[in-house]
């Protein structure tokens, strides 16, 4: 008898035009943290959706604790003790933690909230989740919401836990917490499958790692004896360069000037206050800060998506404070948005529509109000080829059918291809595999070298340090300081992110 809790053997799943899973094997041991590594679109989410009953495999066998099973729905999966934390949480925002956790559990027409709360508290303490049952979802951070999702699985007695890119939405501190929680869970005998593109996370928690590429099983490796570079090479099929090669920048005139900007946030208090910043031609300025310190408000105000209280914004010397979004875009502002599914894409429209969404009313994509489909198709093809956007039906695929990382690549491709003067990139590589990150980083530097201005907002300090020529640190909506990347280090930027300004 094997001691595998999960065995997926010879799994195959086709979508129109693509084989998402082609004879994939996955074997997870009891009490193990098992990582799945693969490029964007390799078929990881598809494989997990099959295990969780969201999709049916066309071929293959699934065994849970040695017994062959058929999983037709998430309910079946629950019954087998399988739980999943999706990348987009499924919580009711104005409900409490306890209510969310009982919600949807069978036989919950009449429920004993006290008893439930007690159980929630117990679980929370046991695994160090730090969740109180009567907290309301909308008042807690994203990291805590994720822990509620974890609690939900545990409350339902799941002992096989699936995490699909759980760290993509977390801050570095939250990621550390999650890693600890995972270790606790494994120590208690839970088996965990984690999908992540971040190799250091795999190194930190996983015992073994299954690598897949373009739908096919490539290898299974022992994490302790395999280096991150080796894993990356296995997954991409070639060595990956983690360090961005770039020359010294030769900045020119300011392209973006933000002067004494004040912006209200959703809670109607100043989210950005008295903020001034220049981004010059030929430089990348990174904004470092803990999530929620005014980055979103700053970007939305510059792009015209949010009204400002006072202050002004200049693009190429032109006052754009009060002009429409369209006019800003036409003046050469491009923006990789924070939330790719909300702002970045029309999910139910094909890629063609999405690739020209900002430019469909200009030549050559249309003339005199009539669309020119062949031009649109050609342009879209160019983008998806250059940025390696993979999908079943090419430019005719609906954006929503793309894997998360490929959606991101499509947006980044669209924005860079539009030849902007100023590119505002918010977490441009969120959800991308290391190969794609390498490529996007190169492209961003290439933009800079062409004399464009790049404003980079990222929650990953590594990315900020790798790309930026100067780093602006934001805390509580205020600019703490702006420093040359060469003359600083992660420690002092970290201090500034906490609001402490080092006296020179």
């Amino acid at each position, binding site marked *: 008898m094997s001691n595998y809790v999960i065995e997926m053997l010879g799994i195959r799943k086709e979508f129109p*035009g693509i*084989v998402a899973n*082609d004879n994939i094997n996955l074997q997870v041991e009891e009490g193990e943290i098992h990582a799945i590594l693969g490029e964007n679109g390799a078929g990881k989410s598809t494989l997990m959706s099959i295990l969780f009953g969201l999709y049916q495999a066309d071929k293959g066998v699934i065994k849970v604790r040695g017994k062959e099973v058929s999983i037709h729905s998430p309910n079946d999966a629950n019954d087998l003790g399988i739980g999943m934390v999706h990348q987009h949480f499924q919580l009711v925002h104005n409900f409490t933690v306890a209510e969310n956790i009982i919600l949807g559990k069978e036989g919950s027409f009449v429920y004993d909230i006290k008893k439930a709360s007690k159980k929630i508290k117990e679980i929370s303490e046991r695994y160090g989740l730090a969740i109180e049952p009567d907290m309301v979802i909308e008042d807690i951070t994203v990291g805590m919401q994720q822990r509620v999702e974890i609690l939900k699985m545990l409350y339902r007695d799941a002992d096989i836990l699936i995490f699909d890119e759980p760290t993509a939405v977390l801050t570095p501190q939250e990621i550390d917490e999650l890693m600890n929680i995972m270790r606790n869970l494994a120590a208690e005998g839970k088996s965990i499958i984690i999908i992540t593109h971040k190799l250091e996370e795999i190194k930190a928690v996983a015992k073994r790692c299954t690598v897949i590429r373009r*739908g096919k099983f490539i290898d299974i490796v022992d994490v302790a004896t395999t280096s991150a570079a080796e894993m990356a090479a296995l997954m991409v099929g070639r060595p990956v360069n983690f360090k961005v090669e770039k020359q010294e920048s030769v900045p020119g005139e300011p392209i973006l000037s933000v002067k004494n900007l004040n912006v209200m946030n959703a809670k109607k208090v100043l989210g950005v206050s008295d903020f001034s910043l220049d981004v010059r031609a030929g430089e990348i300025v990174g904004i470092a800060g803990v999530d929620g310190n005014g980055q979103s408000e700053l970007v939305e105000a510059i792009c015209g*998506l949010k009204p400002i209280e006072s202050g002004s914004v200049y693009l190429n010397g032109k006052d754009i404070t009060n002009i429409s979004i369209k006019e800003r875009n036409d003046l050469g502002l491009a923006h990789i948005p924070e939330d790719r599914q909300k702002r970045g894409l*029309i999910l139910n429209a094909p890629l063609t529509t999405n690739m020209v969404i900002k430019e*469909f*009313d200009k030549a050559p994509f249309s003339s005199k109000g009539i*669309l020119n489909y062949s031009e649109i198709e050609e342009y879209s093809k160019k983008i998806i080829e250059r940025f390696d956007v993979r999908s079943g039906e090419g430019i005719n695929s609906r954006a929503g059918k793309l894997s998360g990382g490929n959606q991101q690549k499509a947006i980044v491709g669209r924005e860079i291809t539009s030849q902007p003067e100023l590119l505002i990139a918010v977490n441009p590589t969120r959800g991308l595999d290391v190969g794609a990150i390498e490529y996007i980083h190169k492209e961003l530097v290439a933009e800079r070298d062409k004399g464009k201005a790049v404003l980079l907002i990222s929650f990953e300090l590594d990315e900020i340090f790798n790309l930026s020529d100067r780093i602006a640190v934001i805390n509580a909506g205020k600019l703490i300081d702006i420093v040359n990347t060469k003359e600083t280090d992660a420690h002092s930027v970290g201090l500034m992110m906490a609001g402490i300004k080092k006296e020179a």
Partner: protein
Amino acid sequence: MAKNTVKIKKPLMEIPFIKSMIVSLTTVLLGLIVGGILIIAIGKNPIEGFQKIVFGAVSNTRRVGNTIAYATQLILVGLSVAFAFKTGLFNIGGAGQMLMGGLMASIWAHNVTFLPQPIYYLSLILVAGISGAIWGLVPGLLKAKFNVHEVVGTIMFNWIAYWIVYDAVKVFIVDPTIIVKSKPIPMQQSLRTEWLASITQHSYFNIGFFIAIIAVVVIWFILEKTTLGFNLKAVGSNRYCAEYAGIKVNRSIVISMGIAGCLAGLAGLTYFLGFSNIMEIGKSPSEGFDGIAVALLGNSNPLGVFISALFFGMLKMGKGSLTAIGIPTEIADTIIAIIIYFTATSVIIQGFWEKIIKKHSEKKLLKQAKEEK
């Protein structure tokens, strides 16, 4: 090309138009089955019942003419609702927009008797279209400026139109003998023509049908081929993304409601100056709401709307003949209602067909594999 991409022939269900056709036909079939069961329940023969409906709708050229004349309004209101749907808006102001289009066109018809025929028709279209458009535009503006939901706005405007007609008919075009009705519009001032009447045994068939066909083509063209359609559909699918892309969301809402209102205004023209030739006060055309069903069954696709309007037109015009065999005409309305309910479950129906087709193709593959062995 990626290594593992294979060229699979597109299954039928993957072609959007075919897919929605199959789903719509299934809902119709289900509606008819339930209707049939109801007919059996009252002790009648359902086959005979359906025969009667078809008989009533198309058994001679006069009936065909009347059915088409009735379906004309449904096509236009259906298009109106469908167009708004595509922009993410719910236009239930069809009734009010029809009333305003019909009222203004009627007043025009009674007073403007000096224009040469083609120009006169054009003027009618303009008058009715613009009146309807205003009745859609204003609720659109209310939504854009004050965030009044378009459902509330259009319902409000239905009532305003209702009361305007109530007074305006009496003031401007009243029939002195029957003060609850307007004077009938003489044939040469209406959309009816001698020639169309003569080839359809004096049915109500009128040039409104050709207006409707043109509208179907124009709306299809706008939605599929123009930047305006691109713009409106983008707003309808994801307004946050549209906003981000620089599309003026509020302006799109107003334009879309204007066009939707215009279409329903034209429906008022074909109804009050074609299918009928009078306006009664205190009556609101139910076609304004039937248009919603038409749009749903037609999956908001212009051609789909055209077909489903003809189908609903047949049911409505043919149902009178049911009484001949003692079946209450309400059965036909029930069938329509059931079809609408099933349309709401179209996702389930789609899933059903997808499963069946998949099983079928799997069997085929198995067979092939066996033969190869």
